[in-house]
Structure formats: C-alpha cells, structure tokens
C-alpha cells in the first residue's frame, strides 16, 4: 500500500528504548489513519483506562498522520495526538496542521508512540531514520516560539519542523496545548500537559524521503480540480476574512457567546468582527502545507501592546473577546499571543477566564481570590494578567484556572458549577447553546467533550435548515451522519474547511484510493467512520461515560437568552431527552448510551463487543 510510510515508532521514555512496528493493510482499510489509528491505539494500549492517572508515566502519548500527509492532497497535511486527557479524564485528542505532518511522513514515519516518562527534560529528534532523545534542560521554561528557534539553531538546519510545549505544558496546566510552526496547535484536551508530565519538551522532525503515491498522475489531476473548487464560494469566507467572518454572522443569529455565555450577542461585535480585523490588524495570511484555501490570519496589535503578533481565528477571538466582554482587537491579539507562546488552548482559556469573571462580578470570587486582579468583564489588562497566571500556575487565581472550568468550579462551588460552560470537562467552544440547539446536541454527545469539530452539527442551525430554537428526535440522525463523516475527515486527515468542496463521500474514497492504491467506496469509508467513532466511545465507556454525561451544562436549560433576536430561547429538557434518544437509536446504542454488542459486531469490533457491548 502507498501513501502510508508503513511503519511507526514507539519510544519508551523511561528506558530510552525505541521499537519499530509496521502499519498493515488491515489497519489501513479499517481505521484509515489519524483519529482511527489513535482510537485503536488508545483502546489497545490502555485496557483499563479508568485506572490510569493521565499525568502519570502509565499514560501514553500517541501521534499519527494519515495516508495523505506528505502528498499534494488538498489541505491534507495534518497530524493528530492522543492520550487519556488530564482535562476530561476520557478520550483525549487534538489535530494540528502546518508542515509537521508532511515532514514526519517524509522522514518515513506514520506515527510516534511515547510511553513512560523521561528522567530529565528531553526532546525527540527525528532525522529520517536517525532517532535521538536529546537533552532539553536548556529549553525548559522557554516559550514555544523560542523553543522552535533554539532547536533549529542547535540542529543547524531551519528545515527541522518543531512541535513543542510552553511553560504551561511543563507545569501540567490542564489546558496546555502543543504548538508547531508558531501558529498551529494541537489545542484541546490538555495534551500539552501529558507531554510535560513525560518531561518531553518537543519533537523536531526533518524528512528527506519520497512519499509514494499509488496513482500520482490521476491524483494530480484530481487535486487540480479540487484546488480550483477551493477558490469558489464554499470556502470564500475562510479565504477573505478567515473564520472571524463568523463574528457578525453569529451575532445576527444570537449565537455569539458573550459574558460567559450569559448572552448570545455582543454590543461591540462590529469592533471585533472579521471585517474590521482584516482592515486594521491582519498583516499576513498564511496557509498550511498543501492548502489552497489559506485561512490563517496573522494579526499585529496597533496601539495597546503594539507589535504583538498572533494568528487569530474565530474561536480564539470569540472566547477571549466577547466571552470575556473584550472589545479591543489589540487586547485579543495580545491574549492569543500569550496563550500561543506560553502554550494553552485559547478556547478553554477564554472560557475559564469568562467563568472567573462571572464569579467575580457575582461576588463568588473575592478580589483576594483573584490575587488582587479586578476581574470584571471587559477589563483587558485583567484578562491578560489572568491568562499569564493561568499559563504559569501563578498565585491563587492561576492555580485555580489551570485546572480547567469543571474542576475550578468544583473547587469554588457556591453555585458556580451552574455556569461552568463545559461538557465532560471540556470547555464549550464559541457556539451559543440555546440559540443553536442541534449544535448543542452534537457538542454534548461528542467523544472529546463540548466539541464543534466532531460533527459540525451547528451547520444545519446556522444555515436555517432546521428550527434551531427547538429540538426533536430527528436531530439525532443529523449528528450521527455528521460524526461518521467527520471521523473520516479526521482520519484521512484533511481540513474540515474542504468539506464543502467534495461532491460526495465517494470523492473522499477516491482520494484515499488514488493515494493508497487500496480500493475503497464511499459506503465503506463511512462505515469505517462509524467504526472509529464507536471505538472511541467504547474507550469512554470504560472511563465511566454514559447517558448522564451527554448533557449540556445547566445554563442551557435554566437561563433563557435575554438577547432580542432570540429572546427567551432555552432548551426544553424533554425535547433534549427525545433528541438524545433519537441519536442513540441511530447509533445502535441502548437508552443509557452504551453501544450494543450487535452494533459493535456489525462494525467488526469484536473485542469491544465482548468488553463493553450490552445486549440491548
């Protein structure tokens, strides 16, 4: 089979030993790559996940590319990282792009598995077949951007591509991420903290090998066609304004979260819109390897913190901006820069600071507990200060926020759990819950916690294809279809922004076949998506997940939205229950959200049927 390197590396950090294993055709066809390989590996390597402390040497840290990495495939150069998440305690998973995946594949590796814990700070150098665990004592404490530069300098070639953690990961902040090429992150689930717990500062890769493709001429023709489509209307907003184009769209729909999800509109939305940002702050638009779209908008602050630089997308902007009451693009740019360099996820960070601001304004957190910070909504300096403390676990506030919103709200109590905006411990992203109700179902049932990237179910709401202010049984099917498709997108791995340019799943299968030479139909590939999703769910079931965890936070049911455009919108519990039943029914799971033996056997998940499956 082509496309794949056909082998992966396992590194025992405790003993400093490496083992090379093969990736075989069975894995390729059944689990595709990326998400599929990660789900398979996590399930197999952690047979009793409930017993594993995510920050102990017993946890694993798994990196996978997919079959398309290293080729010209449209926006297909992405990699994924997996571990039991220290933030959620369940299936932890994140995807990043840039050039890293292409480089790793060119070095001749589909993936890397880390086990154990290095005795002292280390980084892994992969230079084709030359693998070396190098001392990183001098890099400890450095920002992600500094780390990249220092490693390139030290290895004497700037073509090394580096993925690293910042001080937040070293300090095992639960929101810590992994950064490559400055602006690309494995953002969610706190996987940077797992890396920190293993004393692993970075992975630096240089590859010089050819990546073999089954039918290169047909692939090039197909890609020329796909790339042409990428200049059309389906990707227009990404190309021009980047994802911040959503700010005004969402504001109009009443689904732009502000003031810690107390509202669905922001009175200063114009000032932080994608349109405004392009006019005043965007200095450069950049693309990941092989991407004809180019959504990444790099900002530079103009007045406050002039010169600060960061890549600002919709999620970062909305959570660190409106959700914290911030109306200044300068402060948002600086806030993202702090998160990116010190190494935390902007979504989770903006969410947890928003929660702390609500606590402060309601008198639940005193000024003493915020280390003297006047943590009002809209106070830009307070936001930046809180972020720095969070990243460094500094003071009372920093130590609290570093735990993530679920744990922090449990520590603080006093009813603050009611407005801790998360599901399964993962902070809610920037899609308002009550004004996008199919989206909320998708978020709540997702395998990694509150997550817009596992089903894209917000699309039917935003596009007006359903009544977004209500729920019914039929929404289950929408989420189910979305999840199966996205499981494939995340396994191939291609960028979700291309989803509108493929005419059908058959074209995704065609792309897979042209690259790998393995025959695959649209139907088969979607079945693989369903298999992968179920496998990850089985891992979660072993972690203790069931129906009770597939619900949005209380605010969704209890606090009607005050905004004029969606006044009074709230989720009715009985409607939600009905929609959830509908979802489980499509999935072939029982009423408690546990996969049935029958469904698992149908998907070829025999071991899982035995270990997790229920009769009905």
């Amino acid at each position, binding site marked *: 089979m082509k496309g794949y390197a056909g082998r992966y590396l396992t590194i025992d950090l405790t003993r400093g030993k490496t083992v090379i294993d093969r990736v075989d055709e069975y894995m390729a066809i059944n689990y595709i790559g990326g998400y599929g390989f990660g789900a398979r590996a996590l399930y197999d390597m952690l047979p009793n996940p409930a017993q594993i402390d995510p920050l102990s040497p017993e946890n694993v840290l798994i990196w996978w590319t997919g079959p398309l990495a290293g080729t010209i495939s449209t926006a297909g150069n992405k990699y994924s990282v997996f571990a039991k998440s220290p933030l959620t305690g369940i299936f932890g998973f994140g995807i990043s792009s840039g050039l890293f995946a292409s480089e790793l594949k*060119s070095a001749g590796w589909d993936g890397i598995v880390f086990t154990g814990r290095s005795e002292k700070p280390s980084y892994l150098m992969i230079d084709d077949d030359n693998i070396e665990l190098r001392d990183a004592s001098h890099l400890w404490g450095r920002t992600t951007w500094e780390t990249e530069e220092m490693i390139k300098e030290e290895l004497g070639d700037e073509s090394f591509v580096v993925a690293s953690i910042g001080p937040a990961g070293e300090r095992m902040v639960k929101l810590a991420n992994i950064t490559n090429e400055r602006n690309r992150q494995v953002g969610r689930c706190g996987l940077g903290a797992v890396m920190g717990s293993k004393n692993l500062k970075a992975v630096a890769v240089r590859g010089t090998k*050819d990546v073999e493709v089954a039918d*290169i001429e047909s692939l090039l023709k197909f890609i*020329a066609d796909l*790339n042409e489509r990428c200049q059309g209307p389906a990707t227009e907003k990404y190309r021009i304004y980047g994802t911040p184009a959503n700010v005004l769209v969402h504001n109009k729909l009443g689904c732009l979260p502000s003031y810690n999800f107390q509202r669905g509109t922001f009175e200063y939305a114009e000032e932080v819109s994608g349109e405004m940002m392009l006019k005043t702050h965007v200095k450069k638009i*950049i693309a990941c390897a092989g991407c004809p779209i180019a959504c990444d908008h790099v900002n530079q602050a103009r007045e406050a913190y002039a010169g600060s630089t960061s890549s600002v997308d919709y999620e970062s902007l909305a959570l660190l901006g409106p959700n914290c009451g911030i109306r200044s693009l300068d402060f948002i740019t600086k806030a993202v820069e702090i998160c990116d360099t010190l190494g935390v996820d902007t979504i989770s960070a903006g969410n947890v600071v928003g929660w702390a601001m609500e606590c402060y304004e309601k008198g639940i957190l005193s000024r003493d507990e915020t280390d003297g910070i006047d943590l009002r909504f809209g106070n830009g300096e307070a936001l930046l200060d809180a972020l720095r403390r969070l990243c460094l676990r500094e003071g009372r506030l920093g130590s609290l926020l570093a735990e993530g919103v679920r744990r922090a709200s449990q520590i603080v109590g006093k009813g603050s759990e009611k407005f801790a905006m998360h599901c399964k411990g993962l902070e809610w992203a920037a899609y308002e819950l009550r004004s996008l109700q199919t989206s909320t179902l998708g978020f709540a049932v997702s395998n990694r916690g509150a997550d817009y990237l596992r089903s894209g179910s917000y699309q039917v709401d935003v596009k007006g294809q359903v009544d977004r202010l209500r729920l019914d049984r039929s929404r289950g099917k929408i989420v189910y279809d979305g999840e199966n498709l996205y499981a494939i997108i995340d396994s191939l791995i291609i960028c979700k922004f291309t989803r509108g340019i493929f005419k059908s799943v058959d074209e995704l299968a065609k792309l897979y076949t042209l690259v790998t030479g393995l025959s695959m139909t649209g139907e088969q590939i979607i079945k693989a998506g369903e298999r992968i999703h179920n496998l990850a769910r089985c891992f979660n079931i072993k972690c203790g997940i069931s129906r009770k965890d597939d619900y949005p936070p209380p605010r969704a049911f209890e606090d009607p939205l005050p905004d004029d455009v969606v006044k009074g919108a709230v989720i009715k519990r009985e409607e939600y229950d009905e929609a959830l039943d509908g979802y489980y029914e499509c999935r072939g799971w029982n009423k408690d959200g546990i996969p049935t033996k029958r469904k698992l056997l149908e998907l070829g998940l025999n071991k899982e049927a035995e270990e997790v499956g229920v009769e009905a």
Partner: protein
Amino acid sequence: MESRLRKVIVCDPDKCNGCRICEYVCSYVSEGVMNIKKSRIRVVRIEPFLNIAVTCRKCEDPVCVKACPRDALKQKPNGIIAIDENKCNGCGWCVEACPFGVIRLHLGRRKVIVCDYCEKYGSPKCVEYCPKEALKYVTVDQAGRELSKKAVKILLEER
C-alpha cells in the same frame, strides 16, 4: 532568444502564503515523486509575516555557469541552465555563487539541480498549480510594469 524576451517565474510575496503546492508539484514534474525537498522552486518563510517562492532567474551571464570549475553548466539560448551530470561532481561552488540560493545539490545524487521551467511541458507547472496566482510566468519587463501599477494603486488608495 533575446534576454529581454525571456520569461521567468516571479512571485508576489503579498499573495504567496507558503502553502508549498508549487514544491509538491515540482517534485513530481522533476522526479516523478512527492517530496518537497526535491523541488526546484523553494518556499522561503521568514517569521512572522514574509513568504516568497524563489527559483532560477535565468540571469544574464549567470554566475553559476562561471563558477563551475568543470564546465558542467551551460546556459541555453532560452536562458535555462543545462547541467551535464557526467561533469558535475557536486562541489557546490555554483550553489555558493548563486545570489538567490536557487541552484542546489540533489539530496541523494549530490549533483546539482536547478529549475528547467518544465521544458517538456512548455510552461512551468508550479505557476499552473499556484492557487493564489502568486506565481507568474512573465518577462522581467512585464513584472516591472505590474509592480509599478500595484505601487501606484497603493499610493492612490492611501491618499
């Protein structure tokens, strides 16, 4: 061919976003493989705001040719640098001589490689595949005229 009629590949750094599609295509056209390290056109990124792709400029009286102590390089009348691999011993003097760093040694063979403007296709494939039209295949004079237009436009917009 008169040198003023020679077309070269020029790159607009405002449009180039570093996607490397030119490099992937070039590695196929040049060697039939996917391997951006074998591309004859190179994407340069200088953090945080600069991207540009560079390749052979078809210089007049090219220094790479002059630098070669073994007479392995020749400039054809159409401006393209021809390499005699039997003569090249990979000393790399031409690499050092080229002011743009666009003539390089092949990763494996250690012989010199340089953009041949996709002679077999008649026009460069990287330009065809560039999704942002950052790459253009034009004469230097045309490139200059375009730049003047762009500069004037910016000046007028700013007023």
